């Protein structure tokens, strides 16, 4: 390490330590202020000079007024998920003067979050999302009480947390947590403002509000996991969850204010591509709904990962479809393919991902194209030109994280059965490659 890079490293560490110190000092100060505040407050809901100056622009709206602002000051909203939806929702709720905001997230800030989760700054990569978001929100308005729940919401803790708030916002990124939150809100009698986004599309509705339907009334059966795409795999344009998250804040405020125009029993479909909003009128509450019906089967929280057949995160866990001899490590691939120029490498990611970053001389054939006869023909032609009469010619298959590559190996073994090839996948995918072989390779 050069002298310069050493001192840069040292200084970065010092700054990180100072930030940590600042965070704990701020926490201390907050506790002190809260003690002080509880002694002097006559009424929580009475508007202060700061409140009036700060919120004057919304207080003068006749349908809000001082009374509405007081309702907001006395209200509490729980935001589950401090990501693409939760950040804008939290920002507008804090700005509007909701008195108490709860944040739930188990995750840490990652560089790939920054394009859409705008409460998190790049200095906070690796910091828990909840404390990163709370820090940013306190900078917006230090009078708002922010409760940090840095945990994975599950059946053991959900009811206890949900019951502490008036309104719940579903800003999560997976099916299992959506059913969990729905059931927890039905059991606790809380309205649930549900938003979701992927690529250029968004959906928004309010469940369990004033005898309206719940998530299970509309979607009693969870989607098969293989038909569910998350933002990590499908991508998402930051402004799209931005739109939906802001609308979630608006619906939560309307519920707090007791307005009638709440998006309950209706589903809003947003197309960022066409700039259209479509309002679908939903069914009424289903009297035979498993959780909110007349004779509910679900009266306490269940195992939602089992119910949905999927994990309660947006991170795909490691599949294990192959035998160990069908898998190679990054080191083996490096030695064989890069150093000795043995075999071919098939990259089964989509072409958009392949164009971002790929191994030199790898061939891009997206997983979904492996079914096509013409694709297999193309692979056979490549093999003919490369392998001559070699026995067990290596065909290495890779993807981002080593799951799709296993699915691809199974397909290729069938279609290349007579080709005298050894089809293997790169265990752990390009993520493992970046960690073990090439630290300049992007991990996305």
């Amino acid at each position, binding site marked *: 390490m050069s002298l310069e890079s050493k001192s840069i490293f040292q200084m970065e560490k010092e700054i990180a330590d100072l930030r940590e110190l600042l965070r704990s000092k701020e926490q201390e100060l907050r506790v002190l202020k809260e003690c002080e505040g509880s002694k002097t407050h006559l009424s929580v809901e009475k508007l202060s000079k700061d409140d009036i100056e700060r919120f004057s622009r919304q207080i003068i709206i006749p349908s809000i007024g001082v009374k509405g602002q007081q309702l907001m000051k006395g209200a509490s909203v729980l935001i589950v998920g401090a990501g693409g939806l939760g950040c804008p929702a939290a920002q507008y709720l804090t700005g509007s003067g909701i008195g108490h905001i709860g944040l739930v997230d188990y995750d840490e800030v990652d560089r790939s979050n920054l394009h859409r989760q705008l409460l998190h700054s790049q200095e906070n990569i690796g910091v828990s999302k909840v404390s990163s978001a709370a820090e940013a929100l306190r900078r917006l308005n230090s009078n708002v009480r922010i409760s940090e729940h840095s945990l994975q919401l599950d059946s053991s803790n959900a009811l206890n947390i949900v019951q502490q708030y008036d309104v719940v916002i579903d800003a999560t990124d997976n099916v299992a947590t959506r059913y969990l939150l729905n059931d927890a809100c039905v059991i606790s009698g809380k309205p649930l403002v549900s938003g979701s986004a992927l690529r250029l599309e968004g959906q928004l509705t309010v469940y369990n509000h004033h005898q309206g339907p719940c998530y299970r009334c509309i979607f009693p059966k969870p989607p098969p996991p293989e038909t569910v795409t998350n933002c990590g795999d499908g991508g998402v344009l930051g402004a799209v969850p931005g739109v939906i998250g802001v609308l979630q804040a608006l619906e939560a405020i309307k519920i707090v204010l007791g307005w009638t125009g709440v998006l309950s029993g209706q589903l809003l479909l947003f197309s960022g591509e066409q700039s259209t909003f479509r309002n679908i009128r939903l*069914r009424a509450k289903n009297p035979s709904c498993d959780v909110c019906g007349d004779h509910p089967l679900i009266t306490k929280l269940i195992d939602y990962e089992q119910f949905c057949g999927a994990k309660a995160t947006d991170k795909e866990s490691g599949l294990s479809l192959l035998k160990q001899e069908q898998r190679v490590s990054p080191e083996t691939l490096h030695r064989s393919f890069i150093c000795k120029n043995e075999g071919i490498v098939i990259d089964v990611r989509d072409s958009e991902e392949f164009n971002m970053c790929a191994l030199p001389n790898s061939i891009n054939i997206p997983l979904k194209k492996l079914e096509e006869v013409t694709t297999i023909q193309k692979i056979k032609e490549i093999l003919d030109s490369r392998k001559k009469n070699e026995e067990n010619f290596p065909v290495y298959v890779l993807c981002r994280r080593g799951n799709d590559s296993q699915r691809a190996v199974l397909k290729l073994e069938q279609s290349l059965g007579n080709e005298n090839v050894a089809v293997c996948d790169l265990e752990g995918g390009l993520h493992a490659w970046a960690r073990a072989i090439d630290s300049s390779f992007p991990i996305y």
Partner: protein
Amino acid sequence: MAPQQQQEVEVVVQQQQQQQQGERGAAAVSLRVLLFAGARELAGTAEGVLTGVPARTDVDHLLRRVTEAFSLGAMSGAFILALNHDYVMPGDQVRVRDGDELAVIPPLSGG
């Protein structure tokens, strides 16, 4: 039109004859189909047309037809249908006109 569909249409016509005097229940119409979220992915398109739909039909028939026409078998039971912006429930009878909009809506779960 497939013989089986013809039969269904006739059954519907017979059932409706008394209350729908003079109406041509046997007419088949085309629906404009909009596919959202995962349905769009499975179908490989955001929009399509469903032809030969009986003007009086039921939601289960519509479900079967869109599932078949847009290869939605993998998510059967996990999406809803909206006819001209109104949710329609399996088991319901519906009346459709030429050019009506049928939306196929699975839940979106990302965020």
